[in-house]
């Protein structure tokens, strides 16, 4: 098999045995980017970094374009940050560098992570390696597409409402949103600060556990970071699920779900039952309110976070052409009008509206209360369950343009991933089959806060018994 198609742990074995070298691996992955990136558009830009000496994990990695890399262009796929090169590394980049990771470049995404299809980037749409006429999901669509296409051995994404898991599902790879606070967000350009987490997108569960070990941990510079010891997640890669309590929430199997997705997920349930897990039918009664709650809380936070893009400290500055005596407000309004795309404008305006005088109680405060109910549903469920199992998304990858003109239809594709962000719990998507069009289907596993180990052991048991993770997109044929 080609080097670019291997997982990080397979590559590390080859390096250890002397069969290959970090330099050879980086060259193979770069050659793959040159060969296929014009088809996927997963990378916005690439660098020529070389592996340094003998380092513990000299694996080529792709970084979502909203994570700061010192001295490199970082734009959130937006025109408003067109020339921005951060003067510092994000905490996760320091950690990747500390183990010798080779940073390949910046991965495409929905502008400011606003989207579920990677169609809103100022650098062009990303295409799904399994079918170039379909979206890779979003907003970390570049990260998932790059890993699926062999353009990166593994990658970092960020997840505010499903932006790691839904693209992982659409691209047939593994993606984890860690517990809120598990990974430092220092250097992540903020979207919804009470929801955002950085996480791994990888080719299999073993790599996911390893990459989480590299990036997890307390960081004083992120005041929401949690000071708990980080376990060795590789030790949780055991297959034993006997006695594991798995909850199946009835609200996640709704009308509108693609029948093949439901069938694949139910087959996974049958597998766990056969392996001795205890399957429980559960109810998360406030699930139907999750999308509405999210689009109030997340846009409110986004409207506030994006106020910093004002044409003063960095990025774009524009003044109205006709007005010679433009004042500072004209400059703000013109800069933001030219710098942000339509979805960013929609979300900023929606967030501003729900926070504005007269609407705050009716929308924002009500959403924060609904968030409590949704979180309570999950907290209660985790008293009796170790894992909550569901589809990651209601469908497989949809066609490019299919939902682009209907923001609400796009928002509803996040219906199963949003609750984990609202509650702060960890959730992982892994491949669980293909539909009749040959598109990957994703299985979502959620657990209580900081119970990533349970997710890994459950996911590993399923993965090793099925082998979906060994299938690769054949986009070069």
């Amino acid at each position, binding site marked *: 098999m080609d080097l670019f198609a291997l997982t990080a742990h397979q590559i590390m074995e080859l390096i250890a045995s002397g069969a290959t070298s970090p330099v050879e691996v980086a060259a193979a992955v770069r050659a793959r980017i040159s060969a296929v990136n014009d088809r996927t558009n997963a990378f916005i830009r690439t660098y020529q970094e070389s592996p340094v000496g003998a380092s513990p994990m000299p694996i080529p990695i792709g970084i979502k374009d909203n994570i700061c890399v010192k001295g490199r262009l970082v734009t959130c796929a937006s025109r408003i940050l067109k020339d*921005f*090169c951060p*003067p*510092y590394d994000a905490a996760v980049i320091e950690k990747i560098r500390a183990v010798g990771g080779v940073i390949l470049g910046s991965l495409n995404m929905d502008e400011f992570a606003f989207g579920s299809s990677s169609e809103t980037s100022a650098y062009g749409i990303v295409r799904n390696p399994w079918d170039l006429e379909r979206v890779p999901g979003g907003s970390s669509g570049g990260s998932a597409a790059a890993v699926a296409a062999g353009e990166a051995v593994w990658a970092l994404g960020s997840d505010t409402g499903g932006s790691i898991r839904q693209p992982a599902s659409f691209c047939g790879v593994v993606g984890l949103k860690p517990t*809120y*606070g598990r990974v430092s967000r220092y250097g992540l350009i903020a979207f919804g600060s*009470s929801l955002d987490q950085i996480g791994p997108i990888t080719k299999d569960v073993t790599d996911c556990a390893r990459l989480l070990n590299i990036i997890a941990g307390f960081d*004083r510079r992120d005041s*929401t970071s*949690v000071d708990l010891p980080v376990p060795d997640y590789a030790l949780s890669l055991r297959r034993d699920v006997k006695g594991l309590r798995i909850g199946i929430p009835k609200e996640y199997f709704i009308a509108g779900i693609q029948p093949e997705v439901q069938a694949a997920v139910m087959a996974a349930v049958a597998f766990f039952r056969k392996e001795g897990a205890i399957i429980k039918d559960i109810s998360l009664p*406030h699930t139907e*309110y999750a*999308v*509405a709650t999210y*689009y109030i809380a997340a846009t409110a936070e986004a*409207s506030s976070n994006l*106020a910093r893009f004002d*044409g*003063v*400290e*960095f*990025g774009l500055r524009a*003044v*109205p052409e006709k007005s010679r*005596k*433009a*004042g*500072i407000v*004209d*400059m*703000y*309004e013109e800069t*933001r*009008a030219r710098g*942000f795309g339509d979805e960013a*404008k*929609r979300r*900023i*305006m*929606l967030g501003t*509206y729900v926070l*504005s005088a007269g609407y705050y109680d*009716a*929308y924002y*405060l*009500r*959403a*924060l*209360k*609904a*968030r*409590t*109910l949704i*979180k309570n549903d999950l907290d209660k469920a985790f008293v009796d369950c170790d894992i909550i199992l569901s589809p990651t998304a209601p469908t497989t990858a949809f066609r490019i343009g299919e939902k682009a003109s209907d*923001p*609400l239809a796009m*928002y509803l594709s996040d219906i199963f991933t949003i609750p984990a962000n*609202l*509650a702060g719990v960890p959730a992982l998507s892994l491949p669980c089959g293909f539909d009749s069009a040959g598109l990957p289907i994703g299985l979502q596993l959620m657990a209580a*806060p900081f119970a990533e180990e349970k997710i890994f052991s459950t996911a590993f048991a399923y993965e090793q018994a099925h082998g979906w993770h060994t299938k690769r997109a054949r986009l070069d044929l």
Partner: protein
Amino acid sequence: MITNETVKYIASLSRLHIEEDRLPVFRAELESILQYIDQLAKLEVANVPPTSHVFQMENVFRDDVVAPSLTPAEAMSFAIDQHSGHYKVPKVIE
């Protein structure tokens, strides 16, 4: 009900210039999203406390000690316009 005037007002609060011919498009989109969001009105939440943060965190303080950080020059290095260590902006007061 959202009108074109409402969109204009929200846009000005958001410091976004929206062209006249785009107002109806944003109006229709925001209206459909708000209609969907209105389902939250069905929820009984009078006695439910709000969750703005998933973990009950107190204020996070650090010791007041000097530590390395960006130099003023580094921090200013992407200033779009500057004058002797200050950001320069268009006229603020008429």
